[in-house]
Every structure is written in structure tokens, then in C-alpha cells.
């Protein structure tokens, strides 16, 4: 199969939210470029990144909006929640305040996305174990989460992939209506042939990590 612009079956829209300095842009950069970006300038408004992943044998293009964490940019970033299939909510395990603010981020995410949007909690900077301020167990009580490090790349893939798997699962079991406005998912035929036959045995849980 030639690598063409439609060499994927779906587009999933993601948004990354969380306090400033938790490492949202570094996570995105690590995920799209597989590199750690030291001295990452703070995000103004939003930035955009993209990568194609594979879930259950399906190629999925992720369109990811990385948002500015500063409160002053909220008016702009809020407009990006709408139409997101996945929301990665990030805090910094070495700064409790970023964890404490999660409820406010979650409120925004719940209010501004659609009911099927998969919200995924990420505790970043897991490489800084010595400075840990929030335990894994505590965060686990708040929600299922993934701790990762944008610096080492540890678990970063999983955070993006697990979210995609959940969204894909929602599509398969019919709980996510692709035709609904703002579903955050677009279906694209991967090849000219057989464009609609996508519900073929999703049993093989492919893991691309």
C-alpha cells in the first residue's frame, strides 16, 4: 500500500490540557518526534501536532491540539475542546498544585466536550521520582491514570495509544456515533477497495508499543 494522504482509516482529534509547566508540549513533542525538547517555549494559544498510529490493525491519524496552560489563554483554548475525541489531562507529579487543579480541568473537559470524549489522566515527569509530590496510589483513587515521562519517553506512547484504543472500542461497540457532530472522529477509507467494511473482527488487540 502506497503511503498516500489517505493511508489511514480514521482521524481522531485529541486535546492536551493541564496547568502550565506540566509538560504538555514536551509530551506532544516526545510523541510526534520521539525526542525530548529541553527549553520548550511556553505555548501561546494552541499548537498542533500529528502522527499516525495503529490500533487493531487500523491506521489512525491523530490530530493533536496542545493548549496553553496559562489561565489567561483559557478563552482561546476552550474553543478547542469541542470536537475532541480524546482529552489528555496532564499534571506534574512533582507539583501538587497541578494535581489539585485537576478538578477544574475536568469540569471544563466534561462541560465542553461531548459525552463520548475519552478523558485520560496523565502524571508527567515520572523520571523525577526523588521530587515526587503526588503518589501514584493517590492519583489512582482519583482516576485510572498513566504516569509517564516526556523526558525519557517512558510510557508516553501508551498514554496516546490507550486513549486511541478506548475511542476505537467505543466506535466498535457503537457507543460513539461517527455521524454525530463533534464526535472528534472522521472515518476515511484507507484504500479504494472495501472502504466501509471496518467492523471485521476487532478481536486482535494490536499493541503498537
Amino acid at each position: 500500500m502506497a503511503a498516500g494522504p489517505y493511508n489511514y482509516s480514521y482521524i481522531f482529534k485529541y486535546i492536551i490540557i493541564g496547568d502550565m509547566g506540566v509538560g504538555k508540549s514536551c509530551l506532544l513533542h516526545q510523541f510526534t518526534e520521539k525526542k525530548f525538547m529541553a527549553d520548550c517555549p511556553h505555548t501561546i494559544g494552541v499548537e498542533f501536532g500529528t502522527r499516525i498510529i495503529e490500533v487493531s490493525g487500523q491506521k489512525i491519524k491523530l490530530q493533536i491540539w496542545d493548549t496553553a496552560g496559562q489561565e489567561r489563554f483559557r478563552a482561546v483554548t476552550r474553543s478547542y475542546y469541542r470536537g475532541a475525541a480524546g482529552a489528555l489531562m496532564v499534571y506534574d507529579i512533582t507539583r501538587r498544585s497541578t494535581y489539585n487543579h485537576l478538578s477544574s480541568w475536568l469540569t471544563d473537559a466534561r462541560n465542553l466536550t461531548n459525552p463520548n470524549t475519552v478523558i485520560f489522566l496523565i502524571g508527567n515527569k515520572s523520571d523525577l521520582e526523588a521530587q515526587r509530590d503526588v503518589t501514584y496510589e493517590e492519583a489512582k483513587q482519583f482516576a485510572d491514570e498513566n504516569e509517564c515521562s516526556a523526558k525519557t519517553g517512558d510510557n508516553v506512547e501508551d498514554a496516546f495509544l490507550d486513549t486511541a484504543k478506548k475511542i476505537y472500542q467505543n466506535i466498535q461497540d457503537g457507543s460513539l456515533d461517527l455521524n454525530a457532530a463533534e464526535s472528534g472522529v472522521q472515518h476515511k477509507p484507507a484504500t479504494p477497495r472495501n472502504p466501509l467494511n471496518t467492523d471485521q473482527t476487532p478481536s486482535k488487540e494490536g499493541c503498537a508499543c
Partner: protein
Amino acid sequence: MSAVNSASTKDGKQPGFWKKGSNVPGSDDRMKVQQKKDMAKGIKKDSFHDFEHKTSDAWDDGDDDLLVMANIQMSLKDVRTTAKAVLDNHSHMTAIPSATSSHGAGPGVGIRLNSGWKPPKTTPIRLTKEPVPDREAAKLEKFKSVLAGPNTDLDELRKLSWSGIPKAVRPTAWKILSGYLPASVDRREPTLQRKRNEYFGFIEQYYETRHEDMHQETFRQILKDIPRMTSLAHLFQQKVVQEIFERILFIWAIRHPASGYVQGINDLVTPFFVVFLSEYIDNAPLNDHIQEQHVEYLQFAFRWMNNLLMREIPLRCTIRLWDTYQSELNGFADFHLYLCAAFLVRFSKDIQREKDFQGILMLLQNLPTHHWQNDEIGELLAEAFKLKYMFADAPNHLSKKK
């Protein structure tokens, strides 16, 4: 068009180029009259037949299929794309044809279709050198300051223009040089408004009479000639463009009865049309493309505004930019907007080459400006100045449409 004017006023009074023509040179009346005269005299039959033979294609009914073709409606997008292609094409012409091969077809010269005759290859007597960037930028700056006013020094403008006008300021310069707009900056907008109203008045007054007995011959000739203007063939297949030319030519002919419509005048409109159109054409296909791919301006332009383009250009360029911003009235608040527009247009081709949403956004987030120096900023500033001037006193363009 002063050459045409002066020739036409002498029509019928003095021996000259037009003396053998009827009142409406170039119409088929003239041909018929000539034919009758020749028949009556019984002379020069051969040469007339030769002439008729050579030119018969011009009167052939077969040309009507051009008219049919011309009536095909095309989308506004096609119009813009074509117009842009034409303008680009013209702007890339660097060869100056030899003066001796004046019969060659070149930009803006209409040649007859359906003739097997091919124009001989013109020999370039010289090629314009690649413009030296800083010299070009300096030239733009000069034009800028002359055009800015409060009163444009016409002598200075003529002096500058003699050796060529930068594309960005050409529409404005031409309007002033041709006397269409006044030297006073303050009076330009009201004058433009008045002239436009005047023209729309002419349309009401004269254009409606085009099918009346007295004028229909003229109008029919104009209708025949416009699709033949091969210099802009694609453009002239657009109905909206044809109608613009029909109105211009017809109204001009009616208001200049001494000459009337002379074939060739249609060609003379073209440079004005292309130059003035260029003021409006650059943005439209770009904007269409951006909207078709569902890219919103907020997605990239927020940072342009918030950081005054500092994330998009090297610091040395920002510093140069601020020289101007601090010299402009409300430079940071108002002029920056025009500069951002110019900045976007600067990458118009690159953006249009990107065929999907992520391609466009990735490009806009990582515009290739690392190598930029003062020259690039100079060009941007000139373009921004042009936009500022173009939209001066038209605050509605700043409000959101719909």
C-alpha cells in the same frame, strides 16, 4: 489612451490614418463601405480580395462558437485561479521583446484566433536582471513615502515610475499617474467613490441603450472581439470578466463618438484591468484554500497577534520591524494587522501547495524564515503599507463578515 484620443479627434478632417474609415472605424460597416467603393471603381479588386481572404476568418460565423464557449459559467474559484495564473505569468515575464518585431504576440497583445500564422520568435534584446533585493526594497520604500502624502509629488512619482514601478504599489501609482486619483491623500477615497458612482451612472445611462438600432452595431462588434483577446484567453472566458469589458468598451465608445469603438481599444484596456485586478486577487484563492481545509485563522494567527510575530521571525527581523512600528501611527495596534496579512500572503503559494489541514497547520507553525534579513522585512512592510493604503478609510473591512 491619449494616442487614440488625439488620432480620433482628427478623424475626417485631416489626412491621416483614419481618413478612409467611416465614422466607426473597425466596424463591419467600414468593410462594407470599402467593398462598395472598390466594386464601384472596379479597381484593386485583387488586392481587396486578397485582403478579404486574409481577414475573412475575423468575420466568420464560425467564431460564434467562441461566444458559446465564453458563456460557459465557471466558478468564482476558477476565475480567481485563472486570474492569478495570468498575473503570475505576467509578473514572471522577464524577456523584453525586440522593438523591431512589434508584430509578435506578447503579453497584452491580442492576436487573431484560427489563423495558421504563428508569431515569429522574438529575440530578447536584453533580459532584466534578477532584482537586487535591497535595491528593490529601497525602491519600494521610496514609492511608499512619495505615495503616502499628504500630497504626492507628481514630478517625483513620474521620475521614480519611469524606470518601473514595484508590483505592490503599481495599482496606486497608476491611478495617480493617469489622473484618476488626486495627489492629495485625503481626497483619494472620496474621489474614488465619486468616480465609481459616476461610472455606475454611465452604465445606467448608456449601457442600457446597447441594443438600440443606433448602437447595436458597435455593441455587436465589441461582443465579437472580447473572446478573441487571447492574451488573457482563460480570463476572458469568464462571463463576469467579459461583461466588465463589454461595459467599459461600450461606454467609452458612446462617450467618444468621434472615434467610437476601434478594434484594438479592447487590448488597451487589458493592462489597466490586470494591474487594478492585482490589488484584489492575491488573497482570495488563499483564503478559499484555508477555508476549504477548515483551517481557522485563530488556530495560527492568535500567536501572530499575541507575540507580534516574534515566534515566527528571527529576533533581528523583529527589531527591524519595530523601527517601523514605532514610526507608524498605532504601529503595534493597527499596522501590525496589515503586516500579518502581508506575512500570510507572502507564503500564499507554499500554503496552497499543502493539500490538507495538518499540512497547512504544520507549515504555518514552522514557517521557513530562519534566514530572513532586513530585505524580507522591507518587502513585507511595503506590502503591508499597500494594504493599509488600500483599506484606508474603509473601516468595515476590519469587522467580521456575516
